[in-house]
């Protein structure tokens, strides 16, 4: 445990010290080891909008096995998972599609201008220190403007750099699992001086993913294995931090990701021939500089250059007609200025500029070179007094869309126009009130209005794209209670309960003109009404034995509100479960720590029309985790074993994409 706490302190002091406004009041500098967990909990309790955080310790004691599993444990989240280590995973929050969820990586938003969705299967947890999910805008106001441009943001924070001593640290880990899964991981970190520290990370995943599955076919059951599913993926990172003084700091990251995988595709009953492959490569460099002047002013600047390549090939498709390669580039700069004139008031002005472009290889896909200038500015005010915290934000977004290099052609079906420019003002408000003076009981309420602009596929893809599209508009209202009762010295607990109403207007939907030509239009409204509940309880029996319980539950009524005359009116939207739940029980003891955990969801429809007999059944997926940490001197060894899908439940999250059955995973981690 000690190791984790140390690293989290380091992180809070060095990274978040500048990232959060309350650090301005230098409270963080007084943090002691014991208060670390509490502080994360406190952030969740006092957040003015729903905030869920999961650090390494949480992930361990909840038996979280991978990124997908971590997301399943968060309430309000609907993960779309195509199965296996190579299967795409995207995250939708509270009934909004995945394109509404922003993902940030070490404080900088990731982007995919082509699809608008971030595939989270790319990010493994081995290098992650903390995951957090903010729904709407909360009281963390010192953030880039782009962070406020989504209805929900998932923050991935990687392991921090050491700062207190000079010795090199090495972490090595080997993970092995069913279906040919092998993943070595290596991390080196060192502080060369009090100011300068470097870390390097390399990880590799090889997975055959040829897991067996069963799929029901009327009265029969088809049994087969996934084929054409091999994945070979690597990721390397170089980080540095230079902090000459407590008030300013420069950080940088060089990131490279390479994933060459076969795509097993949709499961058929009688054939499993597939020849699709996808090769993704992503390279980016990002740097951040933060400076603080006294306790009144702080500046945070970020710059990033991103390159992303995706090469799709289908060797079975005659003439290779579906083959397509795409290249995306992004240049991004952001500045945020924080002003804290009094202890009650804090203000932030953030301005972001980004340039995104895309080109493709296939005339059946993206023909020209579309690009977009995005200029986002936000002004945020936070007022804090006694038991009140209030924030208000106004975000101004400007998107300038153009495309160049459109081939001169006689074809009438080639998209030669540019997508509409867009300019919008998006407000948000949130507040938190401590109900009782001496109880950790908070009431919170928030509102956020935001939109998403059409992706480049939606605007420019051959036939499918339309340059006439308007943005998809969203409103979200949340009201919630958070509570952390004082139970005893040995028992702590936290409860969060939120209810919400969300609305989406002018949904971007692909509609057919005939069977072969589909085009995006703005049609459709969706309303979500739901409840998110989270609880964490810890009880320490004595010095050596402890029990930790965690659970989350979501109720989502995500309803089609397009046309009251339609038979589909008020029907649950495709792929949105009404009930989602997760839970874990951990028993910590001197011998071997054990965790039983489960995630599940109720049935879903794969279409908005609820076509009879297409329903996808609900499921509960149990897992068992055991781990042991051994320390001798400076050496720390952690051995962990997992049985995933303990009861071998056959289920699909996406129709005809069965998930793996029972499987195992072991990992050995050694830290020096």
């Amino acid at each position, binding site marked *: 445990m000690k190791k984790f706490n140390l690293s989290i302190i380091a992180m809070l002091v060095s990274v978040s010290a500048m990232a959060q406004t309350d650090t301005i009041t230098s409270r963080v500098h007084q943090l002691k080891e014991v208060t670390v967990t509490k502080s994360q909990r406190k952030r969740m309790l006092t957040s003015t909008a729903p905030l869920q955080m999961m650090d390494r310790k949480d992930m361990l004691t909840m038996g979280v096995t991978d990124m997908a599993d971590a997301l399943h444990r968060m309430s309000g989240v609907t993960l779309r998972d195509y199965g296996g280590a190579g299967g795409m995973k995207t995250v939708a929050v509270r009934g909004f599609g995945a394109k509404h969820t922003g993902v940030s990586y070490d404080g900088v938003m990731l982007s995919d201008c082509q699809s608008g969705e971030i595939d989270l299967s790319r990010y493994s947890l081995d290098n992650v220190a903390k995951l957090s999910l903010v729904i709407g805008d909360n009281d963390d106001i010192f953030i880039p403007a782009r962070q406020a441009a989504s209805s929900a943001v998932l923050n991935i924070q990687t392991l921090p750099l050491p700062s207190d001593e000079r010795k090199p640290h090495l972490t090595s880990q080997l993970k092995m699992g069913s279906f040919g899964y092998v993943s070595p991981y290596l991390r080196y970190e060192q502080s060369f001086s009090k100011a300068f520290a470097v870390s390097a990370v390399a990880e590799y995943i090889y997975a055959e993913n040829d897991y067996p599955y069963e799929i029901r076919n009327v009265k029969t059951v088809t049994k087969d294995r996934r084929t054409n599913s091999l994945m070979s993926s690597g990721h390397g990172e170089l980080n540095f931090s230079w902090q000459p003084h407590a008030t300013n700091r420069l950080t940088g990251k060089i990131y490279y990701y390479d994933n060459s995988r076969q795509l097993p595709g949709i499961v058929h009953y009688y054939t499993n021939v597939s020849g699709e492959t996808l090769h993704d490569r992503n390279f980016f460099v990002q740097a951040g500089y933060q400076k603080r002047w006294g306790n009144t002013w702080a500046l945070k600047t970020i710059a990033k250059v991103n390159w992303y390549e995706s090469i799709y090939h289908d060797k*079975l*498709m*005659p003439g290779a007609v579906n083959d397509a390669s795409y290249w995306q580039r992004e240049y991004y700069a952001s500045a945020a200025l924080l002003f804290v004139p009094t202890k009650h008031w804090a203000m932030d002005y953030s301005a972001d500029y980004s340039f995104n472009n895309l080109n493709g290889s296939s005339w059946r896909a993206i023909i020209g070179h579309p690009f977009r200038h995005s200029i986002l500015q936000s002004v945020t005010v936070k007022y804090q007094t006694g038991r009140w915290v209030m924030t208000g934000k106004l975000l101004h977004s400007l998107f300038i869309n153009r495309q160049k290099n459109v081939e001169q052609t006689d074809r009438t079906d080639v998209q030669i126009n540019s997508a509409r420019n867009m300019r919008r003002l998006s407000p948000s408000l949130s507040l938190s009130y401590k109900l009782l003076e001496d109880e950790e009981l908070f009431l919170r309420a928030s509102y956020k209005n935001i939109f998403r602009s059409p992706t480049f596929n939606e605007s420019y893809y051959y036939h499918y794209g339309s340059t006439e599209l308007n943005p998809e508009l969203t409103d979200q209202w949340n009201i919630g209670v958070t509570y952390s009762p004082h139970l005893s010295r040995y028992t702590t607990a936290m409860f969060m309960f939120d209810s919400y109403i969300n609305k989406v207007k002018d949904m971007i939907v692909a509609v057919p003109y005939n*069977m*072969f030509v589909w085009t995006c239009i703005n049609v459709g409204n969706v309303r979500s009404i739901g409840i998110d509940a989270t609880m964490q309880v810890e009880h320490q029996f004595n010095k050596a034995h402890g029990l930790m319980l965690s659970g989350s539950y979501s109720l989502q009524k995500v309803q089609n509100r397009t046309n009251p005359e339609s038979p589909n009116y008020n029907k649950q939207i495709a792929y949105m479960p009404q009930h989602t739940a997760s839970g874990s029980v951990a028993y910590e003891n001197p011998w071997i720590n054990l965790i039983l955990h489960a995630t599940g969801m109720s049935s879903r429809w794969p279409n908005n029309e609820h076509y009879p007999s297409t329903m996808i059944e609900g499921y509960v997926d149990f897992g068992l985790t055991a781990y042991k940490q051994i320390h001798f001197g400076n050496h720390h060894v952690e051995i962990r074993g997992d049985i995933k899908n303990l009861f071998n439940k056959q289920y699909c999250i996406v129709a005809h994409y069965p998930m793996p059955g029972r499987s195992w995973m072991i990992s050995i981690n050694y830290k020096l």
Partner: protein
Amino acid sequence: MAVLLMGAAMFTACDDNDNEQHEYIVPVTKGAFLVCSGNMSSNIDGSVSYLDYTSNQVANKQFQAQNGRSLGGTPNDALVYGSKMYIAVTGENTLEVVDAKTLKSLRQIKTNVTFGEGCLKPRHLTASGDKVYISFYGKSESSYDENWNATTKGNGYVVAIDTTTFTRQGIYEAGSFPEGISVADKKLYVCNSDYAACTKPSISIIDLTTGSGSLIKNDNIVNPQKIVLTAAGDMYVLDFGNYGDKKSGVYKISAKNNEVTRLMDANDMDCIGSNIFGYYTEFDASYKPVKTTYQVYNLLSQGTSTFYTDTNNEIIPACIGVDPVVGTVFIASNVKNADTDKTDYKANSKIFMFNVEYSQHGVFVSASKNAKVWGATAGVGPCAFAFNVTTNVIKY
């Protein structure tokens, strides 16, 4: 689609024998099958709907009802030949052979396993003599030169199988993305659609005796889908166009000089005797359907007559089928989605039926709505009709 326009006017045959006893073998249609491709992404399997002529009722999901298993994803075409029905299931790489009367499975053939690994994505069917022919998109085959530049051959195939053993009798290389096929006069005709890419569409003519082939290419043939032949060897081709400036229509390719003439606008066609039936939906600039015209082109009169104009867009036609015996015309129609006001490809379809009157010479005279089968509910994603034709023996 194997119907020869001028050659085989009617199916009747007579057989004399010595006992002064005469008998007529009369073909009779018991009903119409409608193959529905389903909707894979919505978890809707393909299916077969059956319209029983006696009851005028449509029964859906008949294949799975009889066999306890589903056709799977994306069946594309069906053919009733003799006592059997053949169903080409593109998404499953299977050819399902069933008893046409009972729909009980006789054989499921995994085409890429049984006919050769290139026999992927079966598309269309035709029959001649004791053989059934199936077209396949095939698979990509790349070859590399010394500089590792890839040349990717994208040829499809047509396989001939025996109608009793279902074994492969022949395999013929076709062009790019073959769709509809026809056999006449020991020649195999293949529509090479080129997947609407408009770079190498063609019609293959393959001599079934020698195996030699030739190609017809023409600027107007950009996305051929169906082909029928006359006794003289004239070709009547349905071409989907390029979904842009080249509209979908029926063309005649003259056997003499390969001259191509556009006959009528059509999104689909089927024929009986000397009549080619089709329909065409006009759209306005915002892709809103304006009207659908139901037409028939007659080879003898060389004229087109419109027998129904649907200005309310009651019917969103998906495919057409003409009963080869009595000549009634069926239209399978999609329905509109109430939310998007556009065609819903994941909803049950409807069947519309026209009773047709022909002259003594089998020339179209008039068509009228069959009220009993007007808007009957059928499966999702209708794509092809096949007719349950059996024979009655009349002795006298």
